């Protein structure tokens, strides 16, 4: 392999942020005209690696060699001029402006000092034709659906005549036809010698279009090879850091695999949940005192299921029944009143109220109970707060401390306590131990188990397989928004879950 076939070489890249290491000895190699897959779970470092490459971040260590030039790029514009185009996952275009405008924003064509719309419209139209898109380019971007908007973003990236196009989850909103069209475009690019870095969690697509693959885990590259030399199963295993077929270790979490009780009564039955592209046909069933683990890769729809059950999101189709009676929650407050609690995945986005204190955050959902005649029973409130600070080992200067001053792990504990103090009959936990130190993780796991034994039903979403395996009485595996497998305790094994995640039900590996 001579030097000139290697377009991009990033090696030993390390990137640190205050309090965490995002990348540690990560690397990626892309040849000219290659379609290269970049894959990894949440927090693996995919987007950080790309941002380092495109100049959004600077790296602390490592070498970057692109198209013969060494050294990192200073800024996204610099990277663009150097020949790298990026399509971000959140469509970073301007919704109210026309399609043409979005494509040309920042590098318009001029005639006699004024913008030459005619020329730009024509060019925009031609660009989109290559993507088999015949749309009115003069209309605002937001009059088109997300799929089309994504195509426009792709058109913009392609129009820069780059040597490398990075696509971050480009197919998340596309239909099968549109994905096929996209693949045709990528192949065209390949013929022209343009390389593509394809970031996605959709295994089928990666296998259909990519030549090589780089697997990231915890900030490091754990594998780099041609994609046809690795099976889907092994791919998933490498992503999660597991060994296929190995003897399963036990006792990795504080869940006691031997203790579980499941009642007869069905507390929650959600079936056929469908909403947009995120949920196709998801179903889940939870009995009294049962811990149901909801497993799946990134983007499989787990959080969406929980939010739908909680009434936080509206679904197009599907039914949700609580203790046998069908319910239609219009807002979370209805679900809370029905005895459901939901600890969300990202505390910064929709978890903590930053300026309020630990006490106020902890008791927010419980206020209806603690309030008499509109006045909060301060004593009762403080009692509860004290109790949970003890029980969960929340490290804080005191209940009056502003929650934003706490560490991430302790914030998470406060949020957990928010729901625990309500003693719900069904608790939906979305990544409850994310960002918490090992010791605290164990405490929380034990706590969840205790609650289940006391009769609380739990739906546990976790990206950590050990938690799912050791903690669940029953596991539901989601893949691309559909329930593809249900595993009872006896059939529960790492391989079984990995297989389900990799292939779905009934597919050969």
């Amino acid at each position, binding site marked *: 392999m001579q030097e000139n076939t290697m377009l991009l070489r990033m090696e030993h890249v390390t990137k640190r942020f205050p309090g965490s290491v995002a990348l540690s000895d990560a690397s990626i190699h892309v040849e000219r005209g290659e379609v290269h897959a970049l894959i990894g779970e949440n927090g693996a470092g995919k987007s950080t690696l790309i941002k380092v490459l495109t100049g959004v971040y600077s790296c602390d260590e490592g070498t970057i060699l692109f198209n013969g030039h060494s050294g990192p790029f200073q*800024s*996204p*514009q610099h990277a663009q001029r150097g020949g790298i185009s990026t399509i971000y996952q959140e469509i*970073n*275009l*301007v*919704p*109210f*402006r026309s399609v043409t*405008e979005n494509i040309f*924003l*920042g590098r*318009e064509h001029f005639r006699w000092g*004024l*913008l030459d*719309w005619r020329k730009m419209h024509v060019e925009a139209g031609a660009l989109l034709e290559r993507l*088999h*898109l*015949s*749309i009115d380019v003069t209309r*605002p971007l*937001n*009059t*088109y*659906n*997300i*799929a*089309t908007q994504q*195509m426009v973003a792709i058109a913009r990236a392609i129009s820069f005549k780059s040597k490398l196009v990075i696509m971050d989850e480009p197919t998340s*909103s596309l*239909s099968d*036809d*549109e994905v096929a*069209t996209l693949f045709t475009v990528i192949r065209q690019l390949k013929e022209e010698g343009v390389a593509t870095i394809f970031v996605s969690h959709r295994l089928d697509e990666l296998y259909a279009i990519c030549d090589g693959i780089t697997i990231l885990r915890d900030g490091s590259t754990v594998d780099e090879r041609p994609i046809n030399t690795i099976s889907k199963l092994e791919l998933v295993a490498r992503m999660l850091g597991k060994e296929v077929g190995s003897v399963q270790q036990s006792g990795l979490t504080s869940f006691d695999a031997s203790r579980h009780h499941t009642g007869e009564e069905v507390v929650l039955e959600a079936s056929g949940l469908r909403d*947009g*592209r995120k949920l196709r046909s998801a179903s889940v069933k939870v009995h009294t005192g049962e811990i149901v683990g909801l497993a799946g890769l990134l983007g499989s729809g787990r959080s969406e299921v929980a939010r739908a059950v909680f009434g936080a999101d509206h679904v*197009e189709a599907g039914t949700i029944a609580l203790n046998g009676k069908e319910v239609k929650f219009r807002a979370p407050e209805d679900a809370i009143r029905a005895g459901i609690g939901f600890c969300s995945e990202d505390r910064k986005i929709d978890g903590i109220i930053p300026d309020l204190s630990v006490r106020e955050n902890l008791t927010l959902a419980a206020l209806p109970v603690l309030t008499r005649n509109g006045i909060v029973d301060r004593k009762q409130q403080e009692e509860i707060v004290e109790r949970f600070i003890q029980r969960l080992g929340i490290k804080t200067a005191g209940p009056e401390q502003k929650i934003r001053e706490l560490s991430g792990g302790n914030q998470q504990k406060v949020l957990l306590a928010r729901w625990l103090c309500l003693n719900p009959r069904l608790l939906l936990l979305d990544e409850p131990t994310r960002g918490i130190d090992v010791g605290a993780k164990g405490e929380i796991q034990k706590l969840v188990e205790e609650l289940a034994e006391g009769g609380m039903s739990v739906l546990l979403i976790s990206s950590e397989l050990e938690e799912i395996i050791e903690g669940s009485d029953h596991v539901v595996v989601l893949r691309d928004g559909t329930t593809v497998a249900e595993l009872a305790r006896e059939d529960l094994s790492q391989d079984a879950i990995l297989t389900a995640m990799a292939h779905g039900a009934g597919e050969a590996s």
Partner: protein
Amino acid sequence: MSTVSPQPETRELAEATAATSPVRLLTARLPWLGNLLRQQGALIALIVVVTFSFIRYDNFNTVTIYSVLNFNAQFGLIALGMTFVIMTGGIDLSVGGIAALSSVVVALNSPHGFFYSLVIAVVVGTLVGMVNGFIVAWMRVPPFIATLATLYIVRGIALRLINDAASINLDQKSDFITVAGTTVGDGVLNPPLPFTIPLLLIAFLIGILVLRYTRFGRYVLAIGGNAEAARLMGLPVRRTTFLVYMFSGMLAGLVGVLLAINLNGGSATEGNGWELIAIASVVVGGTLLSGGVGSVFGTLVGSLLLGLIVEILQLENNYMLDQGWQFSFSSFWQDVIRGVFLLVVVLLQSYLQQRKRIKGRT
């Protein structure tokens, strides 16, 4: 080779809502009409209103139209500046104060002649606008507060300049009288246009061209639409923001000159509530207060509509009195009418937004 077709969900929705209203039936048959209604609702309303007035009122003629245009020129120009500011997602509450200050400056400088005063006044307005721009773009103070503070400051300065008197007269010997009486189109148009009308139209024309055909214009819209994306694309967000406030101040300065001509003097207390009229014109014209989408032409139409409504109120009053009705709308109803009008427009916009949101979902 397949073309993109609407998603199944939106097709269902489209079918479901298709047969429900006569307007929709009509626009389904004549798609161009639907588009026209959507984009130029304000213009259509304007045409309808004007036609209605011609028919109903005897004394509604070109002279009336001229006087409406003439009077509204000052509001229209302020609204023009406000349009650009609002398109970036901001707001400028100081415009009325700047106009007042500018009128005072004109009056104080009137002994030096019209042209001199004009230049000084516009420069003053521009400077205030630049202060606004600096505070918003660099100090990152929210536009509402920044321009509110500037309003206080500017009013204070205006009063200071004339030693706390409320107003000051123009120097009588100066050439302002001639300017005031300037008309355009003698001989061609009968009666000739007061100079304010071509001024207004030219200003808006420039505004339309700038918005549509210059980089600056597109950046203004991009920033309002998605400031983060604009930044990531490398657009000069701070500079563009600064400039829109500068231009708003500049136009307000110009309006101060018109004000001085109208009042035959400078007034430090005029201009109260002008920002509200400007904002209303902008909203009626179809520009969203959240920024990112809008039409300069729409603001012109909105401004004219709002001005016409007041005029019509008086005409309708006289009409009803002539017809023998006991009750009549006093001119005090103008604000209520304006307010209700605005409410209807806003509700309509909200409804259209909701529908668009449903359509855009996949």
